[in-house]
């Protein structure tokens, strides 16, 4: 590592203007506040109002707050009858659907703790999460998931029962709980305390097994208040929402709780692929999404324009939108830009807004970085996307952009009751009531992330003079996709390098829609392999696209993928024509792989993956 090359890609922390930003004051939550309270008061004070809506034929069917709260009580009674005790963990593996929330709230109403599992998780992950959390019950969506879970039953000794949502798990529990009266459930709910754990959410570390983040009722409730205070009076009493991202993701969970406090109706999307159809049906006014959703809407609109022979107009309109927003941020919009924007509003922008249903007024983006250009583009077409920042460990929101306090390219200012500090080495440290107290049964990991009471985010950033945070890098070896999925590349790479023909493997996907891998071939192994096939003398550079080689590597990739969820799995790979070298700076002289340099020097190979 030479000093000169390090200066090129490393910001000097000495240039950061501020090292501490503190959010506004935050009222303390009651000691008996809990996550169920907003739902229960909704059901009590506005029993007829819809709380959720589910797809029904060509439209949506509403579910009233009273009806939903009633089901929560009855399923909770069933869980109690099934032997679930306060403090027990119950694992929940399902896609985003009404039953997910029904079970989540019922688990809480039984005094127990929800352990969400992504519906895309691998069997290995399910086994780990269920056994590590000590879940007594596993609720899965369908028979396929049940069959997978049954195959590892012996390795989940604490799990007494597996229930299947599609086989009327809810109805079955309601019947089993018929003997348990509402008062019993009521007593348990009344006994909930703010500092009781509400959920244990597993997140991948850079190495080793996923760790369970224990979030308390206080963590989650506080974060909802914090987001609400940041948004301020901009939201109207009657907003409507939409759910389409995994509820196992704490961003979605926080959004549901926010919607309940605001008494918004939330419609369930049936699949991210159906959003184009379902946004107009549900007409949300407020959404929370990951960058991938905004990218998809942008790309979809552009492709449509290109197909209609209007690609040039679209690109021009996009440039105008971006310029307009940039100029507005800088304080002055040139009249000619304003005029062009007015023109394109009718021609182009209105159609993009219609893709979100036409009523969308507020969008929050989190889970990963939203490109500054994309932020300006949406702002230019009349849709402000407020980007925030946080981690599962922080429930999740630490900082947020908001109406009247918005700087594109930053992740906003600390929410109320939250302090953000930049450590000497550039790491972002956080303190606040939304920060978790630790990982489930893993004191070592917990001690590692706290430093004198400050939570170490593992991200690197800088604060500007107004207290806005900008994320500039990452200390932990983690990739965050534009779908908001955290992926640890090291364990995947270890498995890839176990392949006989593989020399080096670099897993990439930062800010990309999916994960892929760059693979280099081991010269000796490939020589042997060629000789065995009477292809001796084939140069390594000629083998990159060889179908036989690709088939061999595909097997290695499949084996690596078995350890992770579909969202984390390697969707595409490239066999590089040459190995990494010191001359190209891809390796340090001491032979350490530099991911950032590899991503730059192999940019054309990477682009080929993502433009396929």
């Amino acid at each position, binding site marked *: *590592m*030479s000093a000169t090359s390090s200066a090129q890609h490393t910001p000097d922390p000495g240039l950061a203007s501020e090292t501490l930003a503190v959010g506004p004051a935050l009222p303390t939550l009651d000691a008996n506040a809990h996550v169920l309270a907003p739902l229960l008061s909704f059901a009590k004070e506005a029993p007829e109002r819809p709380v959720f809506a589910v797809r029904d034929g060509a439209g949506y069917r509403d579910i009233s707050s009273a009806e939903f709260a009633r089901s929560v009580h009855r399923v909770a009674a069933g869980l109690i009858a099934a032997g679930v005790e306060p403090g027990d963990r119950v694992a929940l593996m399902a896609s985003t659907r009404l039953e997910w929330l029904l079970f989540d709230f019922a688990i809480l109403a039984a005094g127990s703790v929800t352990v969400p599992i992504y519906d895309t998780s691998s069997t290995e992950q399910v086994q780990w999460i269920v056994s590590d959390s000590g879940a007594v019950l596993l609720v899965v969506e369908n028979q396929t998931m049940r069959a997978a879970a049954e195959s590892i039953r012996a390795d989940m000794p604490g799990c007494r029962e597996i229930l299947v949502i599609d086989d009327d798990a809810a109805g079955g529990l309601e019947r089993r709980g018929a003997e348990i009266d509402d008062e019993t459930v009521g007593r348990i709910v009344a006994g909930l305390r703010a500092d009781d754990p509400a959920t244990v959410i597993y997140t991948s570390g850079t190495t080793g097994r996923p760790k369970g983040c224990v979030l308390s009722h206080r963590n989650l409730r506080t974060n909802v208040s914090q987001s609400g205070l940041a948004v301020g009076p901009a939201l109207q009493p009657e907003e409507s929402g939409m759910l389409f991202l995994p509820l196992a993701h704490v961003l979605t969970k926080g959004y549901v709780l926010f919607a309940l406090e605001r008494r918004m109706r939330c419609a369930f999307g049936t699949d991210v692929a159906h959003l184009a159809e379902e946004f107009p049906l549900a007409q949300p006014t407020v959404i929370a999404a990951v960058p991938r959703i905004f990218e998809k809407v942008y790309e979809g609109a552009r492709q449509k324009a290109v197909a209609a022979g209007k690609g040039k107009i679209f690109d021009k309109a996009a440039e105008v939108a971006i310029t307009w927003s940039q100029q507005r941020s800088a304080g002055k919009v040139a009249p000619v830009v304003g005029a062009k924007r007015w023109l394109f509003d009718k021609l182009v922008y209105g159609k993009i807004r219609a893709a979100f249903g036409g009523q969308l007024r507020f969008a929050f983006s989190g889970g990963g970085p939203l490109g500054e250009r994309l932020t300006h583009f949406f702002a230019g077409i009349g849709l402000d996307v407020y980007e925030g920042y946080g981690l599962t460990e922080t429930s999740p929101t630490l900082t947020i952009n908001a109406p009247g306090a918005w700087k594109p390219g930053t992740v906003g200012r600390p929410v109320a009751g939250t302090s953000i500090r930049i450590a000497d080495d550039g790491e972002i440290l956080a303190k606040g009531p939304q920060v978790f107290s630790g990982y489930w049964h893993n004191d070592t990991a917990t001690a590692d992330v706290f430093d004198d009471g400050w939570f170490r985010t593992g991200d690197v950033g800088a604060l500007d003079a107004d207290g806005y945070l900008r994320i500039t890098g990452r200390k*932990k070896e983690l990739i965050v996709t534009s779908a908001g999925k955290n992926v640890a590349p090291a364990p995947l790479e270890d498995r890839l*390098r176990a392949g006989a023909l593989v020399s080096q493997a670099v897993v990439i996907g930062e800010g990309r829609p999916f994960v892929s891998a760059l693979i280099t071939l081991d010269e000796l192994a490939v020589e042997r392999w060629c000789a065995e096939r009477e292809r001796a003398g084939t140069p390594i550079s000629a083998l990159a696209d060889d179908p036989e080689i690709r088939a061999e590597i595909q097997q290695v990739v499949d084996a690596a993928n078995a350890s992770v969820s579909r969202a984390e799995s390697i969707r595409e790979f490239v066999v590089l024509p040459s190995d990494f070298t010191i001359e190209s700076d891809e390796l340090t002289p*001491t032979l*350490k792989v530099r991911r950032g340099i590899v991503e730059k020097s192999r940019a054309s190979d990477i682009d080929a993956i993502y433009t396929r």
Partner: protein
Amino acid sequence: MAVDPHPPRAAPEPRHFQLPDGATVSVRPLVPGDRDELVARYGELSSRSRRLRFVSAPVHLSDRLLDHLLDVDYVDRHALVATLVDEPGAPSVGIARYFRSAADPTHADAAVTVLDAHQGRGIGTVLLTSLVETAMENGIEAFTADILWDNAELLDALRSVGARVMPGEPGLATVRVDLPPVPDGLRGSPLHEVMRMASADTPA
């Protein structure tokens, strides 16, 4: 490999040190004949130690990597091997090396590795001390290294002696440690102290 402008020097003589636990360690320069030894010892290294040393660690050292690791001239490219001379077969248990930077000849990229079973015995300290002495004799003023943030103990120790630790590539810190201006300044200096503290011997 590029043509070397500096003709290789003769390998310096081995030196002996006593470890805190009483064992005697010999520190000698790496020689081309160490090829098989490198392969074998790498095979014994735990996956954690491999990751800390190479970040994206190969399953085995290929010929190309070995060529590079064995290409030492004891001035610009130097490596030292630690062997336990009292033990049967005098096994080699650690290695430390530096490569002078092409961009700034007063800087060198450094690394040290000790076999897992022997970590914590002070072998890394002995290796680094010798490496620093040779580096200073050869006009090197600072060591640099890309170190995984996961190697927190080492980073903390380096920080405590005033090393510059900055975010580098994803997952990596770029570290610079200034060497004392005169060779005699090493003993008792903060750098010597950290080499002693870092005797957990986790790879740099």
